[in-house]
């Protein structure tokens, strides 16, 4: 039983890990065909992972409705939203537009999904302004450095900032755009590069641990 529950899955992870790794470095028609098939497999398996999420979400909201906890009525809207878009998708056969005209799914995407999604992300802008006023405390040289670089980038990103810089620091003969470019391409690159190398080493080590079966957390309880 241990073979089926433990050793075969470990063999699967080893096999696919090594072959996928080798296919990147071996320029061969077989590598390309392998990558094409394995990517198709990954798309299909990942699609089922999404169904996992669906079942989980529906189950938790169903429990809320069943137990009539505080705010259970809002959980109904999860189902309403889901079935509106699924219904539109079925009616439109998964197409956003047909012959240049918007389908039901296209209408749902433009007027329901997109406003909800874009607005959720844009709300962060308000919290940036709140944080800037209440929490951006410059108490050390490091924080001051962070502020100065943020200030230069912010001024460099707007035409008004260019005018302000020219009026106050025009005597330096450097424009805000040149300083902004220099910050992004030199000191910020150094900082980012250190992080990238660190992450690459970490990712490589973790990948090798996964391939060789040392890291098995994803397999759940033994």
């Amino acid at each position, binding site marked *: 039983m241990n073979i089926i529950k433990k050793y075969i899955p470990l063999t699967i992870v080893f096999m696919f890990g090594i072959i996928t790794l080798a296919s990147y470095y071996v320029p061969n028609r077989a590598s390309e065909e392998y990558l094409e098939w394995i990517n198709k497999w990954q798309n299909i398996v990942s699609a089922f992972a999404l169904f996992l999420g669906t079942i989980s979400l529906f189950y938790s909201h169903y429990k809320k409705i069943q137990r009539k906890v505080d705010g259970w009525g809002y959980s109904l809207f999860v189902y309403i939203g889901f079935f509106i878009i699924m219904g539109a*998708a079925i009616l439109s056969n998964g197409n956003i537009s047909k012959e240049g005209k918007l389908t039901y799914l296209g209408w749902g995407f433009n007027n329901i999904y997109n406003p909800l999604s874009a607005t959720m992300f844009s709300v*962060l802008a308000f919290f940036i302004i709140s944080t800037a006023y209440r929490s951006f405390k410059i108490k050390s040289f490091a924080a001051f450095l962070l502020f100065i670089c943020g200030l230069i980038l912010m001024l460099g990103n707007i035409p008004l900032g260019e005018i302000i810089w020219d009026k106050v620091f025009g005597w330096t003969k450097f424009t805000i755009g040149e300083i902004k470019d220099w910050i992004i391409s030199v000191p910020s690159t150094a900082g980012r590069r250190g992080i*990238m190398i660190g992450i690459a080493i970490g990712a490589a080590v973790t990948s090798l641990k996964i391939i060789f079966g040392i890291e098995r957390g994803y397999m759940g309880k033994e």
Partner: protein
Amino acid sequence: MDTQVSVILGAFVASGLTLFIFSFLYKDNPFFKIAEHLYMGVGLAWHIQLTIYKIIIPKVWEPLKIAWQKGDTFTVWMTIIPTVLGITLVTQFIPKISWISRYGFTFLMGYAAGLALPAGLTTDFANQILGTIEPFANFFSLSLGKMVNAVIILIGTVSVLFYFFFSVEHKGVVKKISNFGIYFLMIYFGASFGNTVMARFSLLYGRFDLLVRYSQKEYFYATNWVIVGLLIYFIAEKLITNKLLKARA
């Protein structure tokens, strides 16, 4: 769905949902909660229908049908195997047979690990180290500015790596170098903050641009109606709450 009615209805729905979410900035309210829960359902449905119509049907169902009709057993098996691996993931919810989901997860993890390794090593490791030391190959033929930049990048990269190296205790020279690395990290974070401000404000500009557009006559002043409706709600809610508080007192 391009009729005048659907366009105006779309304007009301889009501006309504946008303002429902923004109403949270004033205070938590039923409209925001409705929009929030709708977003959960709508977002999930959007990705599910994408999966069904762009992956399952064209990459699983259609090839399987054609291969079955042609007697192409290789393609049939190459489609059935990942489908079965995908189905094993769902057994996660049944504790007695949840071990079957390991087959699906190990395939995904093996594939991801095998893919991440060369990508990380070549592009984010080797090429980045190369980029740091390349200018030193012809160092003295560079202009003064480029020489200074190359030195700054080298010092910055090394000191940041020192900061992240936790296998050696940070004291003495190591501590001094890693503290220096912190300054380069602060420069990077500051630059990121500056650009994040623009990115978020750009998204906000996009939403406000839409709201201003939908407040025009051709959209039947949709934004204005929704704002009036929300204002009426908040004022009424405040009056009722005050009345109840007075009654209790």
